[in-house]
């Protein structure tokens, strides 16, 4: 490749971003290129840094939930859930089963919504316009249900420490089950449209390879790690909530290339539908939606706790240090995109400039949580 060429030439520096449409947010990278090949890449982040962790130290625990909505803004429910689960672990709160099923179903739907957006933008990065239309259409269906449930399409603020804000509408179960069967069909439709498209295959197979060893060294989690062949999923490795009650597969890739990372997410959507269907069958029709004995302004005991959950992008974790007060002494977020993005340097080396957009897209970063 680049090393074997007989002529000596100077590397050229190319700046990409922060206002580049294909960086999925305000993200900048500097590429040193030798002709068409990338010799070295350096990512620069921080354009969206709001100091969320420091802000959390000044807020009461229930107020933090709103801040968590704004981290990974494509998987709001999953973020809220992680904080609530961590707090419940810290305070040893038992959440009513009905509330837990509702939260789990909403989070799995959110995973599908997030992957649908990924599906669309991935097609767009490869130059196809239709997938983004179809992806957004499916995502909008899910968000309509979210709106009916929580009152907001994106910034829900619906989960509470010990349950949920209010009970779901009466016809909720029927609506979710209808949505699940609709999604099942449309996932197949989307799959047919893009996955084995010849142009798409040429653009993505063997592009941006990440070996299992390298992925692990960089601490990559989520679909990106599984695409490299390591079946690490927090839902099965450390089953939180009710995940040990369901039958589902953890899809694993072989090559760790861009196509594997894409196809794995499509398969994950199918698995999520499977989980939702099982959860709907097991969910009790009536019951409390909030745990008893949780104060409006909780004061967890002195101690510290770390809890990780499987977000659409990887392991999202919260580390809370409590001094017994109504505000956290220290709150640290483990954002999956932040850690995954470190591996970008290794993936870009020796690839074409034209593929850099595809490789970045296949990591599926959300700058809201990279910069916090």
């Amino acid at each position, binding site marked *: 490749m680049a090393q074997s060429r007989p002529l000596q030439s100077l590397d050229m520096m190319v700046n990409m971003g922060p206002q580049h449409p294909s960086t999925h947010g305000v993200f900048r990278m500097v590429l040193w290129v030798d002709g068409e090949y990338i010799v070295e890449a350096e990512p620069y*982040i*921080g354009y969206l*840094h709001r*100091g969320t*962790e*420091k*802000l959390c*130290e*000044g807020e009461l625990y229930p107020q933090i939930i709103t801040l968590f909505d704004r981290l990974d803004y494509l998987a709001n429910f999953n973020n809220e859930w992680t904080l609530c689960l961590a707090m419940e*672990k*810290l305070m040893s709160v038992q959440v009513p089963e009905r509330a837990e099923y509702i939260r789990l179903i909403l989070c799995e739907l959110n995973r599908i919504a997030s992957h649908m957006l990924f599906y669309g933008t991935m097609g767009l990065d490869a130059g196809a316009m239709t997938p983004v239309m179809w992806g957004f259409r499916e995502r909008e269906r899910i968000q309509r249900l979210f709106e009916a449930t929580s009152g907001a399409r994106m910034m829900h603020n619906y989960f509470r420490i010990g349950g949920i804000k209010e009970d779901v509408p009466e016809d909720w179960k029927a609506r979710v089950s209808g949505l699940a069967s609709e999604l099942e069909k449309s996932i197949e439709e989307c799959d047919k449209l893009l996955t084995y498209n010849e142009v798409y295959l040429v653009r993505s197979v063997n592009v941006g390879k990440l070996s299992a060893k390298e992925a*692990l*060294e*960089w*601490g990559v*989690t989520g679909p990106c790690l599984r695409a490299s062949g*390591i079946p*690490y999923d927090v839902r099965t*490795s*450390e089953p939180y909530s009710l995940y040990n009650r369901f039958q589902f597969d953890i899809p694993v890739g072989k090559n760790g290339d861009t196509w594997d990372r894409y196809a794995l997410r499509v398969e994950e959507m199918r698995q999520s539908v499977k989980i939702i269907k099982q959860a709907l069958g097991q969910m009790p029709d009536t019951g409390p939606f909030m745990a008893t004995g949780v104060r409006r302004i909780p004061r967890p005991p002195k*101690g*510290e*706790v*770390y809890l*990780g959950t499987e977000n659409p992008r990887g*392991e999202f*974790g919260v*580390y809370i*240090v409590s001094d017994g007060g109504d505000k956290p*002494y*220290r709150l*640290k977020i*483990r954002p999956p995109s*932040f*850690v995954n993005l*470190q591996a970008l340097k290794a993936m870009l080396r020796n690839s074409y400039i034209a593929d850099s957009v595809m490789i970045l897209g296949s990591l599926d970063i959300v700058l809201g949580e990279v*910069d*916090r």
Partner: protein
Amino acid sequence: MRLLPEVLAPFSPQIAASYDDVVITVDKSKLVQMARVLRDDSRLSFDLMRLLTVVDYNDHFQVVYHLWSLGKRHRTVVKVDTPAAEASVPSVTSVWRTADWYEREGKELFGVNFEGHPKLEPLLLWEGFEGYPGRRSYQLFDYKEF
């Protein structure tokens, strides 16, 4: 996991339990050697670093490492203390490369020096930013409630 005190005996750590975690507190001079044993010893094999955090306790800083073993499916927490006046901890980037950006963030927001880090440059804040905004003493709220 039961072998932990035996395997780590040369580093004379303090081992305690908190919730479902095993917390290992070690002197910072032995951190990197111990980290290598934690990763490479086949009985422990902590190959995934989940989180690196700096916690400010006013008089001292505590650096917390959350580790996970993919093969063995167990977790542990490593803690290292450093005085606030001379906040410095050896870098573990040679053991887990994941620590790279976490340590840069720790330096930038808390002013903890990670010795031996290949490139300890600012990561999140803009060029020329002064102070360490992660610290407890840093006043963030410029408004007052009446």
